[in-house]
């Protein structure tokens, strides 16, 4: 009994040892996460890897969702590469879906942008100059996507850790893009031939090779410079000529590709299994008319192809869906069975899938073609760069220069064909017109507009699957000419058009209201069609008359 009493007292003391909080800091440290003060140069690369992969959507499931919300549901359908088959998905009918846009911008600003900022800030603080240059190029590459989608964006003030964050007007964002590229190229020239020791094993695009990143920077300058040709032709010319002088990507060997892995797969390999989209009628129209073999490397034959509208002497089992199908028709008809899906490499879920495009030689060649057309010093003629662009694209797709009939592709006078009436639809696809009438063969006697249409139409084919860039160029130039949507549910955007921009996301209206309202003023001030925060407001650089 006495022993029991002692035991009880010991127990009491043990429990009563309650003021003791010595171990509390340790207890409250998560052994499965690293606190930020523990980060240094040895683990910098792990943040860089994420900063490079996730904005290209290749990082795990959330990456796939970002890809669906940004690229698949917006760029893919506004470039008319793809058409939506899911009944309730509205972006294909030009509706701005707030929740998707919330998801799209949150994924970027609350996630990817933080990684990019860290990548840049740490490199600056630690004196890692080459890595700082890479970070700047990457920042420009990624932010271009968001400013070209919205207009004014949070850019220079990103990450201020305040409850209000001011926006920059688009012209200022572009100005800074050029400055950042200047600074990056200067550093990389000083490090010519070098490789980053810190990130070489973490950079899935160029393995830390500075020369390759420099080519990327110059190609990006070309892309950005050309974008402002209708608003600031003088700067456009200066920048594009500077880009060419510094040396952009000219060979497919220097193309920027993100190497996918099973851990960081091509996001189409995840979302293709969701069955939400199929090839567009425009892709059918243009490739069928041009007898373009790239359709065979990019798409699968339809499950039940309609062979009544095949070109003479050619089997063309690819079927495309007109954008903007009604909700009713989508519920009634299994378009997934009737229309062409991706090529098989994109359909294998769980596979690493094809590498993801960043920037390619064909695009630079078409940019130089346009520059030459405008009389700029691009180092060659418009026709030469146009034809090189086509060849580079065909080669990139593993194809020779022949069309489906075995004739020379580049010199063919073929024009796009009618996508045909699909016999399987409940309500016929009422389109009989081809998407456009422009031939492949360069018309040296053509007007600037005619040649521009040729260039951008081929660029559209070459850029695939880079719908983000195709959509931006479609807005800038009005090309290629593409088929109207069956239906637009957005009164601001007629069915012949696609939105000029996306809307500011509702979370910003809740959390950063005063600043987003100022941003709308900035947007209106610089716009050729100022309608406030609507899809019908044109961006600062979107100044070509008639678009």
């Amino acid at each position, binding site marked *: *009994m006495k022993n*029991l009493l002692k035991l*009880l007292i010991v*127990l009491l003391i043990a*429990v*009563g*040892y*309650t*003021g003791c*909080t010595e171990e509390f800091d340790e*207890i*409250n440290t*998560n052994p*499965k*996460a*690293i*606190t*930020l*003060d523990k*980060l240094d140069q040895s*683990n910098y690369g*792990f*943040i860089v*890897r994420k900063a490079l992969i996730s904005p290209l959507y290749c*990082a795990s499931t959330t990456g796939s969702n970002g890809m669906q919300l940004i690229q698949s549901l917006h760029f893919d359908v506004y470039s008319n590469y793809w058409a939506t*088959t*899911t*009944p*309730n*998905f509205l972006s294909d009918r030009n509706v701005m*879906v*707030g929740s998707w846009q919330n998801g799209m911008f*949150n994924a970027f600003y*609350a996630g990817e*942008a*933080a990684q990019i900022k860290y990548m840049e800030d740490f490199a600056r603080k630690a004196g890692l100059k080459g890595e700082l240059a890479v970070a700047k190029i990457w920042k420009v590459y990624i932010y271009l996507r968001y400013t070209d989608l919205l207009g004014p964006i949070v850019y220079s003030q*990103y990450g*201020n850790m305040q*409850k*209000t964050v001011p926006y920059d007007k688009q012209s200022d964002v572009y100005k800074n893009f050029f400055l950042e590229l200047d600074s990056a190229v200067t550093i990389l020239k000083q490090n010519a031939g070098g490789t980053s020791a810190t990130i070489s094993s*973490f950079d899935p695009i160029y393995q830390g090779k500075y020369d390759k990143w420099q080519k990327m920077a110059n190609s990006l300058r070309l892309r950005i410079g050309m974008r402002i040709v209708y608003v600031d032709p003088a700067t456009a010319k200066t920048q594009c000529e500077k880009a060419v002088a510094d040396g952009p990507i000219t060979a497919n060997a220097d193309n920027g590709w993100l190497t996918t892995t*099973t*851990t960081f797969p091509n996001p189409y390999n995840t979302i293709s*299994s969701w*069955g*939400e989209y199929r090839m567009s009628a425009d892709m059918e129209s243009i490739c069928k008319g041009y007898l373009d073999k790239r359709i065979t490397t990019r798409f699968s034959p339809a499950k039940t192809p309609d062979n009544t509208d095949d070109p003479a002497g050619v089997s063309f089992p690819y079927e495309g869906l007109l954008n903007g199908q009604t*909700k*009713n*028709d989508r*519920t*009634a008809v*299994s378009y*997934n*069975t009737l229309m062409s899906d991706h090529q098989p490499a994109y359909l294998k*879920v*769980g596979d690493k899938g094809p590498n993801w495009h960043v920037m390619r030689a064909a695009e630079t060649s078409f940019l130089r073609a346009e520059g030459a057309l405008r009389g700029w010093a691009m180092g060659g003629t418009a026709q030469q760069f146009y034809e090189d662009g086509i060849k580079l694209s065909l080669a990139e797709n593993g194809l020779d220069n022949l069309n489906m009939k075995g004739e020379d592709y580049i010199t063919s006078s073929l024009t796009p064909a009618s996508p045909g009436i699909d016999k399987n639809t*409940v309500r016929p696809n009422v389109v009989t017109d081809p998407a456009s009438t422009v031939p492949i063969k360069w018309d040296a006697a053509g007007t600037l507009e005619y040649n521009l249409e040729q260039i951008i139409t081929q660029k559209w084919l070459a850029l695939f699957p880079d719908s983000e860039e195709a959509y931006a160029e479609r807005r800038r130039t009005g090309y290629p000419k593409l088929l109207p949507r069956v239906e637009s549910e957005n009164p601001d955007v007629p069915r012949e058009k696609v939105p000029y921009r996306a809307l500011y996301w509702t979370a910003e209206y*809740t*959390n950063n209201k005063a*600043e987003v309202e100022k941003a709308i003023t900035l947007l209106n001030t610089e716009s050729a069609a100022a309608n406030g925060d609507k899809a019908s407001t044109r961006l600062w650089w979107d100044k070509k008359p008639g678009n």
Partner: protein
Amino acid sequence: MRKITILLALLLFAVSQGAFAQKTITGKVTSSEDGLGMAGVPVVVKGTTVGTATDVNGSFSLSVPNDAATLVVSFIGMKTVELPIGTQTVFNVSLEPEVLALGDVVVTALGISRQAKALTYATQTVSAEQLAEARSINPVQSLSGRVAGLSVTNASQGVGSESKVLLRGNRSIAGSSQPLYVIDGIPMGGIANISPDDIASINIMKGANAAALYGSRANNGAIIITTKSGAGLGEGVLVDLGFTFQASNAYYLDKEQNKYGQGANGTYGPTSTVSWGPEMTGQQVIHWTPDPNHPLYQQNYAFEAQPDNITDWFQTGLELATNLQVVMNTKNTNTALSYTNTEARGVMSTNNLHRHNINLRFGSTFKEKLVVDSKITMIKENVENTFWGGESFENPMRYLYMLPRNLRTVDIEQFEYKTLGGLNRQHGWRWNDNGTGNPYWSRERILKPRDTWRSIGMISLKYNITKDLSIMGRSAIDATFNSFEYKYYNDTYTTAIQGGYDKYNNSSYGWNSDALITYKKSFGDIAFDINAGANHYNTEYQQIYGTGRVFNMENFFALSNTADPRPSEAYSRKVVNSVYGFGEISWRNALFLNLTGRNDWSSTLPADNRSYFYPSVGLTAVLDELITMPAAINLLKLRASYAIVGNDTSPYRLSRTASIATGGVLTLSNQLPNANLKPETTKSLEVGFDLRVIEKIRLGFTLYQTNTYDQLFATPVPATSGVASIFQNGADIQNRGAEITLGAEIISTGDFSWDIDINWAKNNSEVLEIAEGFNVLSYGTDFIREYKLVAGEPFGEVYAKSWLRDANGNVIIGPNGVPRITPGMSVPVANFNPDFLAGMTNTLRYKSWNFSALIDWRQGGTFIAFTEAIRAGSGIQDYTEDFRAANSLLFGRDVFQGEKGVTDTGAENTATTNSEVFWNNVGGRNNPTGGAFVRDASNMRIREVVLGYDLPKEIVSKTFFRSARVSLVGRNLLFLMNKAEYTDPEIMISTADSAEGENAFAFPTNRTYGFSLNFGF
């Protein structure tokens, strides 16, 4: 069994027989209930081991020492009788059954029993019988309607679903608003898998006041469970065997149209997922089957309505519970052992539950000085297939409720087929479509089995140092191990077209150790009861999760068979140390002052703020004992109490982290922690009275107000600031309400009695403040609604898209006859908080028969019926049948009568449309107009009915049973009123806070009926 008792008694007393025999006494022990002799009753000389047991007729004969003073006759379940021996030699004893007066003693904080009249706050007790008889697998669900101010909503996951319990409404922004569960004095992780048979009583302590002593986790009130221990039942062996058999049917409330079938625009489409097709008149149409071996492959079949294709899917659910309890009490020990086996199958095939509960409780007293109590509980629960709730792609309801009206059960119950290549594929009418599937496939080929092991161990030692001073040490662990699998067969779209397999295990424990010193003393009219204690609480959680998609070999469920299996881990730990004290000073056992104080040190808070103190004070006056009252008043007690409860937060919220993931990437967290967090505080005031008049009517009334300040939660900041949210202190959420309990013995004669118990409660919760610069906090958004806290509004406002209205409140109609809709979810349309909750139990007894019925009433509160929105958009809901012809539907006349439609210019609208266009615009999944589908959650239902019959003693005594009882039970039998019409408003998609009032593809309510048999030996 009775023979065993005799044997035991004989064994016990055999040794003493004869040795000291100096005189012989004889007698007979009878039962006061029927006057019959009782066998096996121990008859002992007090303070000795001299004794015997009665024979089969109840007679005994015993030799006792001459100086033997007192004879003790005790039997389990009967009142103990002590008789002076003197010179008497013949003793005829009539034993009366012991009725435990539950209302008089209440188990309160730390497992201490208190006089009910001394309590300074409102409590309510639910007895074991009520729980075990009309049992539900999850005992929490049995509380619905019985307790004023307690609401239960159930998650839609089939058998084994969770429930959400709220006492006096929601109050926490980021934490839980649910009460703490306390089992045998120690906080535990919930009672969902505890056997109702093991529960002796449940006492609900509603406010922070009642629970100040359990610390932070009880700031939402506490549900105190006492399990059966055998204590207080006298010596002997008691064996009870109970069987409960229940059957359940889906109480399907939804209604479909059965005129139009698959298709759109009035045209048939075999792959269509909606029912806007042509009228079904038996015409021949092409069959949808993709199965090359199906007799109708590419053949025509008759296009006919299938009104039962949804209800065909359900089966009769069954539940069989078997319970064995053995109580073995000796003079100084009581041992209670029980085993419960629960076998249940849900109304959905594959949703089967198997549960085993083993419980051993042992208590012993040594020389009235040392008291030991101990318990071991083991629970094994296996659910063969649990279900995903809500709008998840894996929820079979998602597909079932949207079945086109012409799909034949015979075709779809064949949920798979073999391709020509021999591969197993989903037999559906539309291949690889986002959001389409065969519900039978979802049920049979997306499986989520769960295995749970739970073990609870408790030891308690109490030492009475003197009569007034005692010391107690106690420690208890509640540990749970879960193992889950997710099995997706190949061809499961949208999520796992090439199959997938996840497996994860998690384990967690909560470990509480207490030490408590108690001192009791009275000086004349004044009595003290002072306690001081300390508590150490340690909780840990860890999980390992493996996920793999894409099988190498089809449908072989192993992580190593997937293309890229990925592991992930989770871990958290928290320690809270506390010291506390509480005391009661009473005067004449009629005036009671209670004081408590507790100081916590929590590992989750920063060093400067991790220590926090919180007190409470309560006062009770039993007026009828203090002043002379009219004779009719038996009790009048006034009570008031005020409490402050501090609270901490979850672990790891003080510094920003980066997490490492597969593939070698570091991801920065997007929440900016706050290194200076303070503890949150709940302040609670309640006043009330209890009244008993003419011994027949009991009335309790309570008013309360609680405010929860400085809550710890994440406030969103612009994502462009670099983080998505900042963790901080803020908010003031206020709950005010009133509760009434009324009980009355309407009739009480010898053979017949009628009792009524009524409870009623009203709670108003208001968000007074959120945080500086934040008046709105969004909890979560889905396609139809946003759940928000808005300063100045009740807790949990639901915003949605709604009609666009002009300045006069009229609905603006577009030129196509369809209302214009607000562009965003900007309109507050619903709030689930009820106006009041009420319950009424009627209990009637006639001789050996008893009957009780519980009616549960929830009045007010609204929610958005998402299921209905989707079904309306698909042309399935009954009311979409009308107005399908072109230009036949006019808003305000044909639908939404009472609304007035105007054109953009304000003129009366005359533009018409049709049902298909209208509901396609208003309903559907991705962009529905939530405001069009707001439903009133008011409902009144017969929650529970029990008809019981105790077999008469005359019959029972001729068998080897001690008692036998048969009851017929029913649960959820009928809605007396259901304003929501198409659905049960109390079934939510989950128990998450943001799921409050969230209805989407809920499983139907189960209507349950059955019988139970209970035998005592």
